[in-house]
C-alpha cells in the first residue's frame, strides 16, 4: 500500500473518530443470490467495543450478513460505512479496509503450506511493510497469549482443531484489526476443544475488541455479548442486550427459536 493512501486513510479515520459515529453502520443491506433474497434490508450500527452476537435458524442469512461486512460477498444493495467510509462504493479499495477487519472462519482456513509463524507474519510483512523481526516478535507475543508459543514452527496439519482455530484468531489479530468477525468459530470443533477457543474470544471481548460473532453457542452469547441480534429470513427480527434477549424475548419467532435451542 502506498504511503499516500495510508495517510489518506488515517486522515479520514481521524475525521470519523472526531464525529463519534459508529464503527460500522449498515443501512438497508440486501444480498440476492439470483432469486433467493438472503438479506432483505438489514440495518444495524456497531459501535467501538461492541460485542455483537448474531443468532438465528439455519439459512437465515447470518453468514451472508457477516461476509458482506468485509465484502467477501458483494452486497446487492444498501450501504456499509466502516470508520466513516462507504466501503460498498466500488471506488473504495476494499483490500485496505479488510486489513482492519479480521475474519475467523468455521473451517479455520490456515495456510497448510506454511508454518504457523509464516501464517502469522505473511500479512503484516507483505501488506503492512513490517520487518520480519517485528512481525515475528508480534506473532510470538500473541502466540504466548493463546498458549501456543511452542507450536510456532509446526505446520497447521500437526495441530488439533482447537489449536488451529486459536491460530486463525491470532492470524487475524496480527493485522491489528479494529473489528473481528467470527463465523461459527466453534462449529467444526470436537466438543472438548470448544472451551479453549471461547476462552480466547472471551479474552478479546474483555479487552474491548469490537466483535461480531455468528454462533450457535447460546450460553456463550449470554455471557459475553453486549448485544444479541436475532435474524430470520434475511432480516433482523429482534435485537437486545443479552439479559433482555434471553429472559424476555418480544417476538414470537424468537420465543420459538429460543425454546428450540435452549
Amino acid at each position: 500500500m502506498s504511503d499516500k493512501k495510508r495517510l489518506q486513510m488515517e486522515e479520514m479515520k481521524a475525521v470519523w473518530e472526531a464525529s463519534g459515529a459508529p464503527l460500522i453502520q449498515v443501512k438497508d443491506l440486501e444480498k440476492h443470490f439470483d432469486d433467493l433474497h438472503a438479506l432483505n434490508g438489514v440495518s444495524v450500527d456497531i459501535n467501538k467495543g461492541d460485542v455483537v452476537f448474531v443468532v438465528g435458524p439455519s439459512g437465515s442469512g447470518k453468514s451472508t450478513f457477516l461476509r458482506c461486512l468485509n465484502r467477501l460477498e458483494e452486497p446487492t444493495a444498501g450501504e456499509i460505512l466502516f470508520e466513516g467510509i462507504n466501503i460498498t462504493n466500488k471506488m473504495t479499495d476494499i483490500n485496505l479496509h479488510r486489513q482492519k477487519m479480521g475474519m475467523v472462519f468455521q473451517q479455520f482456513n490456515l495456510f497448510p503450506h506454511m508454518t504457523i509463524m509464516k501464517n502469522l507474519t505473511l500479512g503484516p510483512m507483505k501488506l503492512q511493510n513490517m520487518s520480519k523481526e517485528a512481525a515475528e516478535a508480534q506473532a510470538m507475543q500473541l502466540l504466548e497469549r493463546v498458549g501456543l508459543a511452542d507450536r510456532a514452527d509446526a505446520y497447521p496439519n500437526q495441530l488439533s482443531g482447537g489449536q488451529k482455530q486459536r491460530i486463525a484468531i491470532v492470524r487475524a489479530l496480527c493485522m491489528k484489526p479494529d473489528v473481528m468477525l467470527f463465523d461459527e468459530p466453534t462449529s467444526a470443533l470436537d466438543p472438548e476443544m470448544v472451551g479453549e477457543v471461547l476462552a480466547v474470544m472471551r479474552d478479546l471481548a474483555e479487552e474491548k475488541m469490537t466483535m461480531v460473532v455468528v454462533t450457535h453457542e447460546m450460553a456463550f452469547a449470554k455471557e459475553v455479548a453486549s448485544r444479541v441480534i436475532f435474524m430470520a429470513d434475511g432480516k433482523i427480527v429482534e435485537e437486545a442486550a443479552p439479559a433482555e434477549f434471553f429472559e424476555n424475548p418480544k417476538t414470537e419467532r424468537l420465543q420459538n427459536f429460543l425454546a428450540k435451542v435452549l
Partner: protein
Amino acid sequence: MDFIINLLIIVRDAIRYFFTSYIPQLIQEFSNDFYLNFIKEDRWKYIVDGLGVTLQVTLFAVLIGIALGFIVAIIRATHDKTGNLKFFNWICHIYLTVIRGTPVLVQLLIIYFVIFGSVRVDKVLVAVIAFGINSGAYVAEIVRGGIMSIDAGQFEAGRSLGFNYTQTMIHIVLPQALKNVLPALGNEFIVLLKETSVAGYIALEDLTKGADIIRSQTFAPMMPLLAVAAIYLAFVMLLSWLIKLLERRLRNSER
C-alpha cells in the same frame, strides 16, 4: 532301452552344439552387428548426437510448456473464479481446443512447412516451438485443475487478510496448487520426451532418427532400434525416479 540311450545321445549332441557352435556363433554375430552398427564409420555418433538433440528439444519445450501452461491456466482460473478476462479466456479456450484436438505430428508439420515454410530456420528451434506449444496446452489443464482443487476457503482467508487477487494467487493458491500437480507435470514431461521421437518427420536428427539412419545404412535394424529403445527407457525410468523423490520431499515438508 535303446530308445532312452538314443534320446540321451541327442540331448548330449544338442548341448554340445549349443555351447561349441551356437553360442560362439551368436557372440560372433552380435559383435559383427555391433561393429557394423556402432563402430564402423563412427555410426555411434548418430545415437549420441541424436540423444543430444532429443534432450535439447525436450528441455526447452518443457520450459516453454511450463511458461505457456501457467499463463493459460491462470487466465482460465481467474475467469472461472471472477468472470474477468473474457477475451483472453476465449483465446485460451481456442488454443486448448485446437492443440489438444489435433495430433502433435500434424502440428509439427504445419509449423515447419506452413508457418516457417518460406524461411530457413533451425529445425531444433522449430521442434522446440512445436512441442512447447503442444505441451503448454496439457500443462495448462493440469495446472488449472490444481488451482481449482484448492479449497475456496484458502482464497477467502487470503482476501480477508487484505491481499488482492494477484497476491492471494501468488502467496497462497499457486504454491499449494503447484505442489499438488507436480507429479502430473512430471508425467507430462515423460510423455513429451517420448513424443519428440516424431521429430524425424521434419528431418531433424534426433535419437530415433539416428537409429533410423543407421538402419538405412546397415540394413540391420535390430540393434540400433533396440539401443534407442533402451535409451528412452533409461531416461523415462530416471525421470520417474526423480519425480517420486520430489513427491516424497514435498510430502515430508508438510508433516
